[in-house]
């Protein structure tokens, strides 16, 4: 089985780009990743592209061919849709294509464009990640779904809105120097607690923003990295995917996210690591509470114990286990289809030392990324390690 190296990464600025097209956003990220890798279009074997709501936001389905042609690539191209995990799943399949020997050089990433539609329409688009028959029809919004999980978590384990506010404060702080982040400003605990309620107990500053943007990586086989003399100091050593019932009401527990546990178990086994080996983490914090659910399901904290991790400093950039040094979805932004791959972009830069927050993880060798679609019904986990 071939090992998989990250040869290049690229991101657009995350934020509001209402006048740019999705294909132009992906072209910017993809061209940047190819330049970073030092590879030309003709060596690319496949393009794997994540996008969530192209049909609703841009009246554009069938985006695989667009993702290839906007990069000047003539190779098989496929779109992946798994809600907020769309490009996380795209990365997983790119990794498997290289591991299996089917491909040597793959461009993988994603793009999303939503801000032009406005808050009401974006709320409706995001709600399509939940179950249309039994959830959205009862007034469930995407923040509402996470609010229900948060309410159940508080009931099961305790915790407070103030604990969650510290997650937002931390992630905003981490984004201050990230040139790609949508929010490069700090917030206080009181700012978060005083923000308007979106769906109780979650307020506006517990939620990630609506974002336009794109992400891309060039993944190569070890053979190409060696023979073509491509500099690729980070290896994807593990990949895992999990699926749960789409509707919260059909889950065993409202406060646990077993699809993350499934993906993590598979990824850790493939990489030959345990949670104790993890030095740095990027998780899917679409809401402050989502970071808590992820850290527990990844096995990094016991059930009920991640709620205080930001507040006590453990997960801050100067803490024992830095989480979301990019700023997370919360502050970096959440261009849905781009998010999963963007986490690997950020982790690659953190490990190879050219991220604004790399100094906080100078000794780190092992990082994991966690992408979650819907209310954690679709998940991927990837293990990235610095090659020695």
């Amino acid at each position, binding site marked *: 089985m071939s090992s998989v190296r990250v040869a290049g990464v690229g991101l657009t600025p995350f934020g509001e780009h209402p006048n740019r097209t999705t294909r132009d956003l992906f072209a910017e990220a993809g061209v940047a990743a190819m330049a970073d890798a030092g590879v030309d279009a003709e060596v690319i074997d496949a393009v794997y592209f994540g996008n969530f709501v192209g049909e609703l936001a841009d009246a554009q389905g069938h985006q695989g061919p667009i993702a290839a042609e906007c990069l000047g690539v003539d190779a098989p191209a496929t779109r992946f849709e798994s809600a907020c995990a769309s490009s996380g799943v795209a990365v997983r399949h790119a990794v498997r294509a290289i591991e299996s020997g089917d491909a040597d050089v793959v461009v993988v990433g994603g793009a999303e464009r939503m801000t032009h539609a406005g808050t009401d329409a974006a709320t409706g688009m995001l*709600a399509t990640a939940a179950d249309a028959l039994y959830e959205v029809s009862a007034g469930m919004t995407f923040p509402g779904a996470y609010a*229900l999980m948060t309410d159940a978590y508080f009931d099961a384990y305790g915790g407070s809105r103030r604990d969650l506010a510290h997650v937002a404060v931390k992630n905003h702080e981490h984004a201050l120097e990230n040139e790609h982040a949508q929010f490069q400003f700090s917030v206080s605990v009181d700012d978060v607690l005083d923000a308007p309620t979106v769906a109780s107990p979650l307020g506006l500053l517990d939620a990630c923003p609506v974002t336009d943007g794109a992400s891309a990586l060039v993944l190569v086989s070890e053979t190409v990295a060696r023979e073509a003399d491509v500099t690729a100091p980070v290896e994807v050593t593990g990949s895992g995917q999990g699926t749960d019932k789409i509707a919260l009401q059909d889950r065993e527990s409202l406060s646990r996210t077993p699809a993350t546990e499934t993906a993590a178990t598979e990824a850790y086994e493939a990489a030959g690591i345990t949670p104790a080996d993890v030095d740095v983490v990027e998780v899917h914090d679409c809401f402050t509470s989502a970071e808590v659910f992820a850290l527990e399901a990844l096995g990094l904290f016991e059930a009920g114990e991640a709620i205080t991790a930001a507040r006590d400093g453990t997960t801050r950039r100067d803490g024992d286990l830095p989480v979301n040094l990019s700023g997370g979805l919360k502050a970096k932004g959440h261009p849905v289809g781009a998010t999963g791959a963007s986490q690997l972009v950020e982790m690659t830069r953190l490990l190879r030392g050219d991220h604004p927050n790399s100094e906080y993880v100078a000794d780190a060798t092992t990082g994991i990324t966690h992408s979650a679609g819907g209310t954690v019904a679709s998940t991927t986990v990837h293990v990235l390690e610095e090659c020695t």
Partner: protein
Amino acid sequence: MSPDQDQRRGHDAFLDAVDADDAFYVECSNGHGSLPPRRACPHCGDQQLAERSLPGTGRVQAHTVVHVPTEEFAGRAPYVTAIADFGPVTLTGLVVDSRAEDVENGMTVAVDTDETPEGDTPALVFVPR
């Protein structure tokens, strides 16, 4: 409609049944409950499914007051969406006939349907009991 289809009633039939105070769920031969439409039990894959009467009341497991709604529910906000355990199945509904601040986890509710403000699809609602 074939007899086979008749026995595999769908989501519309479920809402009609709720509206007629005759709500049902689907049970597999291993006793797992689920909601229609089903051809296989989502919990074990069993394809021997039968309709059963839904218990009359459930208990709220979690709830949220939604202040920023989807467009379809704009006229109702703020409103309470809750998940309630009815025993064999769990349902998601909009809590009506109660002030938002009076809704709490553990309270007993019955299920009904209600027109959405847009009027095209009935919403599943919970009525405190």
